[in-house]
């Protein structure tokens, strides 16, 4: 059987739906040393803010059953340095439109960062993270109410013509209403889920393992939560969904697409197996054949 893995995300065709998730792939170079990253559908680069950020104190990482907590706290060199240093370097090893991941602490900051990244030709999509659980006074606080999510969406919509994807938090009571609010304000897509807020405690020290106390839970353990939320959002909106949460295999990609995802991000798996995305992409045609899928785009939302 001749299989076709192409999908179209917000008007841009991708060779396959596999996208390394922001924060697990840096700006691509570490992985480009290991394999040709042009096999990827695209990738979402390290969450970028207006100003440089060191992030949280260490320890920033704690292991969990089938996953991990992270509280990196959006360490990045700031948007100007990303544009001046990181993107030209990236252009040497990645030749497809890239997904720019943007975070912020105020509406003005989101606007400024999005505006600057919109002017960059190699940026295909802008993924606005209103769901980082590891920063205080920003990030997730924009993604936990429909009104705040709508406000940020409206504000950044006004400054970019690039496809605009809003990345949502699972740490909410009604994900569908937040997705709908973003859609109503002009979002071109929704990506979900960011990490689940969690905590682990050191039994000897009787203190949280993470210096930030709480962190975001990712990894295979959270996949059922992600599949459920993608399924719910698919019922609520007409714009495409980028599904993520614990995806580690080609089977997981197909499961996420059946729930309603047009494209699929792979996060924590990259950290444990640096070849995870390459292996998933190579495996996809075989798994499609196994499940009698000729065109991958045909199965989007097929579980409904």
């Amino acid at each position, binding site marked *: 059987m001749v299989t076709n893995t192409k999908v179209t995300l917000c008007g841009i065709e991708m060779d396959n739906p596999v996208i390394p998730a922001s924060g697990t792939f840096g700006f691509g170079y570490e992985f480009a040393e290991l394999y040709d990253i042009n096999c990827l559908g695209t990738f979402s680069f390290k969450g970028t803010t207006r100003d440089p950020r060191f992030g949280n104190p260490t320890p920033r*990482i704690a292991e969990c059953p089938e996953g991990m907590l992270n509280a*990196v706290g959006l360490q990045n060199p700031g948007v100007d340095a990303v544009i001046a240093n990181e993107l030209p370097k990236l252009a040497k090893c990645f030749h497809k439109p890239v997904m720019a991941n943007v975070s912020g602490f105020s509406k003005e900051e989101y606007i400024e960062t999005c505006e600057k990244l919109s002017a960059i030709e190699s940026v295909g999509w802008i993924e606005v993270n209103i769901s980082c659980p590891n920063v205080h006074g920003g990030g997730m606080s924009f993604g936990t109410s429909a009104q705040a999510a709508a406000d940020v969406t409206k504000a950044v919509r006004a400054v970019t013509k690039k496809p605009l994807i809003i990345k949502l938090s699972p740490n909410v009571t009604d994900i569908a209403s937040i997705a709908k609010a973003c859609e109503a304000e002009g979002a071109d897509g929704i990506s979900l889920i960011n990490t689940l807020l969690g905590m682990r405690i050191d039994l000897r020290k009787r203190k949280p393992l993470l210096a930030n106390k709480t962190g975001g839970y990712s990894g295979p353990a959270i996949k059922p939560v992600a599949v459920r939320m993608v399924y719910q959002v698919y019922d609520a909106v007409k714009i495409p969904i980028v599904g993520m949460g614990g995806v580690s295999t080609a089977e997981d990609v197909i499961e996420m697409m059946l729930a309603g995802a047009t494209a699929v991000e792979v996060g924590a798996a990259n950290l444990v197996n640096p070849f995870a995305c390459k292996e998933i992409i190579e495996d996809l045609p075989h798994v499609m054949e196994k499940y009698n899928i000729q065109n991958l785009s045909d199965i989007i939302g097929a579980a409904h």
Partner: protein
Amino acid sequence: MTQGFYEILSNVMIAKDIYEMVLGGDTSAITAPGQFINIKIAGFYLRRPISICDWDEKTITILFKTVGEGTMRLSEMKAGEKLDILVGLGNGFNPEACGDRPLLVGGGIGTPPMYGLCKRLLAMGKKPSVILGFASECDVVYEEKFKELGVETRIATVDGSRGVKGFVTHAMEGLSYDYFYACGPIPMLHALCDATDTSGEVSFEERMGCGFGACMGCTCKTKYGNKRICRDGPVLKKEEVIW
């Protein structure tokens, strides 16, 4: 960095809670002493970063301490079993940086990388001396191995049960050196940097996500900017460390 499956050739306890494991497989990705490997252990999500003690064309020797369930599981593994490992991680020590008389200091489970470094310094014709610090006699590793290399090897134990009573800095008297290399607990590294007039290199430890620079889980601030312990370290120059 390469990823591969490595066969356990031996795995034996050599001190209290400390195991020596020899792994067979491709070692071509190892470029410097002080680098580490990252081991996937069945049943645990994240890999375990362990420093390389020594290596040759076909084998890697590591020493590890059982501190949690992952390393406990690793200690139970037998010769013949295979492990998925990322090899050749981190920058490692620079054996070229020192003169003829480098000082090597290992603290506890920070001792292993000093052994591979010592062998390479000797091969370069240099004359290293070694100080190893432990909590107690039952924790001492590789004293004989260093002595077999023919280098002056001093031991310090906190309780005085072996060698000099106290810390490694108490065992430095009369030693002449032009540079130092160290790996061990942060208070030891700090005290050593304060106690030495020469330049040197110190190897740090941090909880890691990936081990190869992707996740920013182990970043520290240095005088030369932010550095990822896994990728830009684990070895930092004395002059750049912010204590």
